[in-house]
């Protein structure tokens, strides 16, 4: 009769996490740090292998999950390390043989010495003969037999929650999985997060990598949202992903880990701190001590005995009795625990019991024996419990609930304190700098030459090695502090050196070879793992991998979001340069606080979001500073991500002065500044602190630039006078307009138009007064004022006072298309500025064939030839303006003649192609403008006003 399968009340999932920090073999002989590996092999790893093979041979049903870190995997498969371990083991065996002989007649120590002799023989035989130094082969066999699930952890066991970038976290995970697959031939389905360190967002990276589960600390699981009603006894899926979290069971941890109540502290167990390496004669021990330095040998003859220093001799048989008792106790607790939860859950609960592998055997010598006994007991038919791997459990019982998780770890305190405190916080700025620079450079070198590739690969290796959680842990616990600090300084220092070399003179080949040989993790590493995440900036793209000469134009405004002519100028100049084959990237401010990159007519325009606190929204200069900082950071990233490109900086007006100054100084860029207007000119002097502050910023921009450009002779003189530059210290390149084909237009009669910002310096009040004077003579005439600004209300009041509200219309700000329509349909366009550096709207009116009347000031006087291409009047003189208007209203033929000449002038002298070419010439001149400091070398400067001919 077939026996019915006993019901499984619940599952026990033992998870062993095996990790040691990567130890480079820099010396000819093994170092004390390599001894950590040798001890772990002798006391933990090989004993575990032997134990599991024994169980398998006896057909004991058992399963457990083993995590092996990549650094450990590297060392376990490194021929030099294996050779050194072999030598160490033979040495230790020899010592144990001598000890067995020495103590043969000692009634106290003979038994324990003999125990070690036999044990080390067994381990030596296993390592040399049975496994032939290949420790992965038995693991794979156990996996094939269904006893082991093997997973891995971060590439160098870096503590992920304290990394600055998603790329760094992703690189740790991605490299680990690739390396694991290269060693074992398959990809693990789960992962051990280093130190159980979880932070929100990690699950997205795990999901992307196809990882199905990880283990989270008990409190991490219990504080999930919503809190799982199954506590830690069932997996929970992370919201929005296919990744599951298993919660660490508190009770099983306590029973093993607790210093005071855990099993390892039992008085019959071996005492770790008594070793013959400290007790016996040095000369006797010297051949067996690493480097001849007194230290632990692993031959420990005493038991814990009690809390005092008095220690009795270790009795192996008594210890094994305690092992059995503790195993039975552990099982009983699991039965009770699982039965309780089975009563309240729909599915059999799982107890997840993770431990550091090295705890068993090294710290708790009897640990592997205890675990073996536990596995035997659980496998018995009537326990109601079965062991399982985590993946097996998930297959049988997929998670049925979703939740989000907060930060947690299994470190002391439950969060990040072990790895972040006053002892070790100094490492994070350096680690984060390296992360970000590597990320920038990996994007900047999509197709590097062989040396650059090797340099980048090694920089990534050094960063990975610096990221190991072991170093900050050691600094916190103040154990081998000097060693941890030295390792950090070495890896960080080498990473930083390589990055500087990559950015400047090229990598030192001898140093690179040395690093590749000593810090030799992940031989197949490709640095591009650092840029394999899609950009997470939404619609804002930081350009990378650019080559050739690239112009970065800084402008506080850009169409369609502009209030004046500056943005239009920048756009038209940039687009024309792009048509001429020059790469141009405009960096400007988004009005919607949403970053976005567009490519428009060949120009890359980056609209940057600028966050300003609510209380500072009205603080103009604070806003200016803020967007300058954002611009400097963005453009700085651009420069870093394109190490092969040659960047030129072109700043438009003082509002981007801080960004320009910072970028120029930081990256030693050629800096060009265009001054569109000055604060002094706008206000006819400086009358308050704000104006003085702006004037100072203008001055700094002018003096800090290598080349200064302005748009009219008037501005040229103004800049030279105001800022103390030498005569002709400024390049004069006029503005231009885009010409649409000339079309015969039927214009509305007697419609006078103004377009521009409504500020006092534009002189609209003069136009209104002039219109008022002629309104009686021309009852059908009307005035259209298109624009907005702080002077609007005052102008509207003026119109009301004059009783002309039915004759004068305010349209507010108009878009370019509407502006063009207005210019084409009006009979006269008037620009009555009191101060006008150039007057681009006047140029646009001339280009559209509109007769213009302008005040004889600034750039307007240079653009319009009085009586030829338009009419001019004295600034502020409403009477003279009225006479000009009457002249044109009375004689349409005169108006047509003037507008024809105006159009021709624009075609010949104010086209964007000529302006763009001239600007490019300024960029590429050999000698910079040195302004007030030195007049030599400026002999090619414009001495007479330049009205750029169409053909250059």
């Amino acid at each position, binding site marked *: 009769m077939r026996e019915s399968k006993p019901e499984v009340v619940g599952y026990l999932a033992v998870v062993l996490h095996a990790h040691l920090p990567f130890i480079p073999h820099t010396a000819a002989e093994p170092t004390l740090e390599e001894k950590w590996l040798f001890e772990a092999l002798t006391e933990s790893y090989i004993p575990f292998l032997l134990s599991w093979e024994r169980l398998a041979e006896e057909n004991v049903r058992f399963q457990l999950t083993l995590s092996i870190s990549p650094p450990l995997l590297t060392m376990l498969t490194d021929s030099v390390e294996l050779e050194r371990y072999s030598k160490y083991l033979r040495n230790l065996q020899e010592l144990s043989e001598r000890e067995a002989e020495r103590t043969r007649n000692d009634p106290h120590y003979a038994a324990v010495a003999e125990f070690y002799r036999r044990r080390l023989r067994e381990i030596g035989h296993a390592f040399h003969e049975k496994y032939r130094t290949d420790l992965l082969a038995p693991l794979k066999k156990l996996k094939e037999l269904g006893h082991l699930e093997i997973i891995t952890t971060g590439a160098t066991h870096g503590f992920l929650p304290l990394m600055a970038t998603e790329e760094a976290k992703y690189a740790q995970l991605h490299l680990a999985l690739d390396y694991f697959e290269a060693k074992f031939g398959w990809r693990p389905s789960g992962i051990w997060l280093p130190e159980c360190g979880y932070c929100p967002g990690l699950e997205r990276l795990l999901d992307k990598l196809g990882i199905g589960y990880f283990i989270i600390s008990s409190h991490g699981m219990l504080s999930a949202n919503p809190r799982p009603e199954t506590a830690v006894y069932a997996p929970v899926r992370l919201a929005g992903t296919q990744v599951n979290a298993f919660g660490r069971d508190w009770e099983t941890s306590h029973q093993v880990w607790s210093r005071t109540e855990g099993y390892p502290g039992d008085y019959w167990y071996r005492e770790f701190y008594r070793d013959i390496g400290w007790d016996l004669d040095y000369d006797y021990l010297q051949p067996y001590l690493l480097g001849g330095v007194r230290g632990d040998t692993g031959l420990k003859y005493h038991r814990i005995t009690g809390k005092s220093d008095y220690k009795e001799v270790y009795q192996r048989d008594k210890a094994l009795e305690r092992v059995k008792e503790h195993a039975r106790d552990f099982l009983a607790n699991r039965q009770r625990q699982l039965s309780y939860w089975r009563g309240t859950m729909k599915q059999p609960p799982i107890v997840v019991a993770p431990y550091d592998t090295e705890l068993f055997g090294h*710290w708790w010598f009897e640990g592997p024996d205890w675990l073996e006994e536990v596995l035997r007991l659980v496998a018995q038919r009537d326990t109601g419990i079965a062991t399982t791997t985590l993946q097996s459990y998930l297959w049988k019982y997929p998670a049925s609930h979703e939740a989000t998780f907060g930060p947690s770890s299994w470190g002391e305190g439950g969060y990040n304190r072990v790895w*972040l405190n006053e002892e070790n916080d100094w490492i994070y700025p350096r680690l984060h700098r390296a992360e970000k620079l590597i990320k920038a450079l990996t994007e900047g070198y999509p197709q590097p030459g062989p040396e650059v590739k090797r340099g980048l690969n090694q920089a990534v290796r050094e960063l990975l090695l610096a990221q190991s959680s072991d170093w900050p842990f050691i600094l916190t616990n103040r154990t081998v502090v000097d060693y941890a600090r030295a390792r950090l300084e070495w890896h960080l220092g080498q990473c930083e050196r390589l990055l500087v070399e990559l950015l400047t003179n090229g990598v030192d080949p001898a140093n690179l070879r040395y690093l590749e040989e000593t810090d030799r993790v992940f031989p197949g590493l490709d640095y591009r793992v650092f840029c394999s995440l899609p950009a997470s900036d939404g619609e804002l793209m930081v350009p990378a991998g650019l080559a050739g000469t690239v112009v970065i134009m800084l402008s506080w405004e850009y169409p369609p979001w502009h209030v004046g002519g500056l943005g239009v100028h920048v756009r038209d100049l940039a687009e024309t340069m792009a048509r001429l084959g020059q790469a141009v990237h405009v960096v400007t401010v988004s009005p919607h606080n949403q970053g976005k990159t567009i490519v428009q007519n060949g120009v890359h325009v980056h609209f940057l979001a600028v966050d300003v606190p609510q209380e500072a929204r009205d603080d103009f200069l604070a806003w200016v500073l803020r967007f300058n900082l954002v611009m400097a950071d963005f453009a700085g990233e651009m420069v870093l991500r394109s190490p092969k490109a040659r960047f030129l900086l072109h700043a438009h007006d003082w509002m981007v002065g801080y960004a320009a100054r910072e970028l120029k100084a930081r990256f030693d860029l050629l800096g060009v500044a265009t001054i569109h207007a000055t604060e002094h000119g706008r206000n006819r002097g400086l009358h308050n602190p704000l104006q003085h502050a702006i004037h*100072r910023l203008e001055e700094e921009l002018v003096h800090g630039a290598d080349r200064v450009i302005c748009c009219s002779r008037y501005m040229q003189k103004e800049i030279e006078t105001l800022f103390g530059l030498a005569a002709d210290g400024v390049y004069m390149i006029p503005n231009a307009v885009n010409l649409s084909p000339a079309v015969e237009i039927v214009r509305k009669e007697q419609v006078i138009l103004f377009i521009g910002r409504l500020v006092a310096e534009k002189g609209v009040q003069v136009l209104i007064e002039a219109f008022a004077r002629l309104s009686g003579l021309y009852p059908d005439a009307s005035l259209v004022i298109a624009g907005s600004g702080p002077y609007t209300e005052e102008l509207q009041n003026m119109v009301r006072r004059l009783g002309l509200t039915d004759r004068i219309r305010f349209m507010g700000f108009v878009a370019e298309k509407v502006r063009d329509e207005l210019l084409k349909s009006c009979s006269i366009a008037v620009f009555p500025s009191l101060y006008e550096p150039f007057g681009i709207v006047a140029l646009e009116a001339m280009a559209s064939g509109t007769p213009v009347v302008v005040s004889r000031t600034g750039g307007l006087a240079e653009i319009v030839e009085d009586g030829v291409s338009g009419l001019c009047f004295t600034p502020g003189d409403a009477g003279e303006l009225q006479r000009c208007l009457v002249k044109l209203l009375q004689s349409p033929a005169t108006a047509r003649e003037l507008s024809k000449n105006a159009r021709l002038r624009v075609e010949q002298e104010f086209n964007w192609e000529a302006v763009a070419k001239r600007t490019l010439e300024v960029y590429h001149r050999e000698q910079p403008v040195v302004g007030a400091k030195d007049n030599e070398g400026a002999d090619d400067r414009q001495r007479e006003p330049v009205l750029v001919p169409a053909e250059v």
Partner: protein
Amino acid sequence: MGNQQNAVVCLLQDRKNLHLYWDLSPERLNTLEHFMTHVRPGLKFCLRLIGVNPENNDRWIEREVFLEDFSALGNWYFRGVNPDLDYLVEFGGKGEDGSFVLFSRTPVINLQAPSWRYKATVSTDITQAKGDWLRFLENQGSSAVYNGVERSDQ
């Protein structure tokens, strides 16, 4: 090495303590000092700890710290924060008139599980016994307390 981040970075030490560091390039420091000397004299370097309600994203200034003897690389610990809130930190210049000019701001740091709208298929009706068990577990404190085996040789 150059390539400072020009950023303030806030890291969680634990749910009641935040660590902050700032990392400025010489050029950035120059910009800020210039602004604070010539454009807005009287500003002092200042950190503001901003509490964020995770439910509705309401924000308020919880603490302000003036930084004396400011240098381009430095750090600070905000201790005893409220573990039921989220936080961010602003770094800027504060004037005697109470005005604050923002230089840099950290992202929001989550101190607890992010809120998430879930379907109420999960019963919250915990049996008395289960509730007792959970309370027992919680009253034992962090399981990580028991992760205290000394690794004295590492």
